[in-house]
């Protein structure tokens, strides 16, 4: 994706501001992009679902409050009016029920987009996600494919307590047969959701509640209705040469802020936005680590058996001789998410933690 944008920029197809945008942090680029549009992640997801529903009549949406209430987080706003109750289903509060129904519909060739109000509630339906959806293609030797998308907010929000704040990236990404995506920016959200809906296999689409309202600059190409991002390719959000910071979802924003802080101290950090947790883009990660020789991985979820653990293992296995420092892992605290605001802040990675870890990685070899 980045390659295409770069190519276009070189050809002069896009304004110079776009070239600058692709190379610098997305957050600070807003001041550069004079004529470029901005879009919230919420609108990006809404437009993606809308366009895919109009392109393919087999796509339908189901979940709690997706219809009349316009979506618990307003992601499915306007879809009931546009497509009617036959394609936008308000389900009763039974994840096990409606997830199973969605999987069954996908077996028979339809393309459901199942919304979980948060992925914590997907635990009520996890049997259907794993056993009915993920494993079916293998168990049937390819006879059945399950073109279903499970989407919803994942990870911590603000003060919602232990049972509403868990990150499920590691759990779902460990299952063969699933694809797991985690967008960060509006462009990620649009491109990856469209790719997920078009994908013939079950996709777990992990959004983030706190990112819904955030605005990101978006290119003309991304606004096109045929826009699609490839599944399994990470994006280098910021190029650097001293340390590689690999992360996904909301932590990409934190990593970019940390990279700004590190730049002030003379450390040039390369920030990689995974976009796709499964399949993991090991090639991009390892190529970057071979360039910088240092790795810091960041995630919001619990530390043991997390996404960061897998990335560290992959780098140690494939690029060990290139490493100049031990790999660093920053994850959420190994504790159920506390309710009190000060404790919650302590339980989640902050920009300072990423900065500290990057500095540790840079000084260790000295």
């Amino acid at each position, binding site marked *: 994706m980045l390659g295409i944008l770069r190519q276009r920029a070189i050809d002069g197809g896009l304004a110079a501001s776009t070239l600058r945008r692709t190379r610098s942090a997305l957050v600070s680029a807003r001041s550069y992009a004079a004529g470029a549009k901005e879009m919230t992640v919420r609108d990006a997801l809404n437009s993606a679902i809308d366009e895919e529903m109009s392109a393919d009549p087999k796509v339908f949406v189901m979940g709690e409050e997706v219809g009349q209430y316009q979506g618990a987080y307003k992601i499915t706003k306007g879809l009931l009016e546009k497509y009617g109750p036959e394609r936008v289903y308000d389900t009763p*509060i039974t994840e096990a029920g409606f997830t199973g129904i969605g999987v069954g519909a996908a077996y028979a060739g339809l393309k459901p987009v199942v919304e979980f109000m948060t992925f*914590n*509630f997907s635990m*009520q339906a996890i049997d259907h996600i794993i056993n009915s959806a993920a494993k079916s293609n293998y168990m049937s030797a390819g006879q059945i494919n399950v073109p279903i998308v499970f989407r919803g907010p994942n990870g911590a*929000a*603000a*003060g*919602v*307590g*232990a*049972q*509403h704040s868990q990150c499920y990236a590691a759990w779902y990404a460990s299952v063969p047969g699933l694809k797991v995506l985690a967008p960060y920016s509006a462009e990620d959200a649009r491109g990856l959701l469209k790719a997920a809906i078009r994908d013939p296999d079950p996709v777990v689409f992990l959004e983030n509640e706190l990112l819904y309202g955030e605005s990101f600059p978006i290119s003309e190409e991304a606004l096109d209705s045929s826009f699609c991002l490839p599944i399994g390719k990470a994006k280098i959000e910021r190029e650097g040469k001293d340390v590689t910071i690999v992360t996904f979802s909301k932590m990409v924003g934190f990593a970019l802020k940390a990279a700004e802080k590190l730049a002030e101290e003379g450390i040039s950090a390369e920030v990689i936005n995974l976009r796709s947790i499964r399949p993991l883009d090991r090639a991009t990660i390892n190529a970057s680590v071979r360039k910088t020789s240092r790795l810091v991985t960041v995630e919001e979820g619990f530390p043991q058996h997390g996404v960061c653990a897998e990335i560290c293992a992959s780098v140690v296995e494939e690029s060990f001789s290139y490493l100049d420092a031990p790999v660093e892992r920053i994850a959420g605290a190994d504790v*159920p998410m*506390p*309710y*009190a*605001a*000060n*404790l919650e802040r302590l339980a989640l990675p902050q920009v300072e933690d990423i900065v500290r870890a990057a500095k540790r990685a840079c000084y260790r070899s000295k």
Partner: protein
Amino acid sequence: MATAFAPTKLTATLPLHGSQENRLVLPIRLAPHSSFLGSTRSLTAHSSRRLNHAHATRRSPPVVGVQEVVKEKKSINSLLITKEEGLVLYEDMILGRSFEDMCAQMYYRGKMFGFVHLYNGQEAVSTGFIKLLTKSDSVVSTYRDHVHALSKGVSARAVMSELFGKVTGCCRGQGGSMHMFSKEHNMLGGFAFIGEGIPVATGAAFSSKYRRDVLKQDCNM
């Protein structure tokens, strides 16, 4: 409890006299040591004796009822509660209502955060059920659990502190609005997921049966 006792059946055998219009007859006197135990034992054991007694003598009603001020009421209400018990229930309901009103205020002022599920209007349910229980009985709640905790005996200060995320809260600020636990009061929690508490409550009830039947413990405290 409702099936063991039918108000209409009792009142039919005990008509009010004109001189006693302003006092409703309560044929049952509940055990004085308990705070409102609507136990069926006392109902079935004493009710028939008292009815016969009152019927025979008609000298004075055995117990003074609650609705002393309602003179206009034509229908005969055989209430199960004394005035004192009624005040206990009333206080509990008022506590629940004013607590939740204050929660709403604090939430809209931004002092509380996350999820807040209020119980305004349902106080009678919490009071009516939970005040029948003893301290050793357990309560399993939903995410709408503030008033259940209050009715069970958790101090309002502890619940409110919990909602503010303070360490003086009943769960040290770690649980939050939807997760009120108290070991002392046998409040086995609020649960966020819908229906989550039902199997948990069944298990707690099972443990009571198990203790009695298998472990042969004395469960009457």
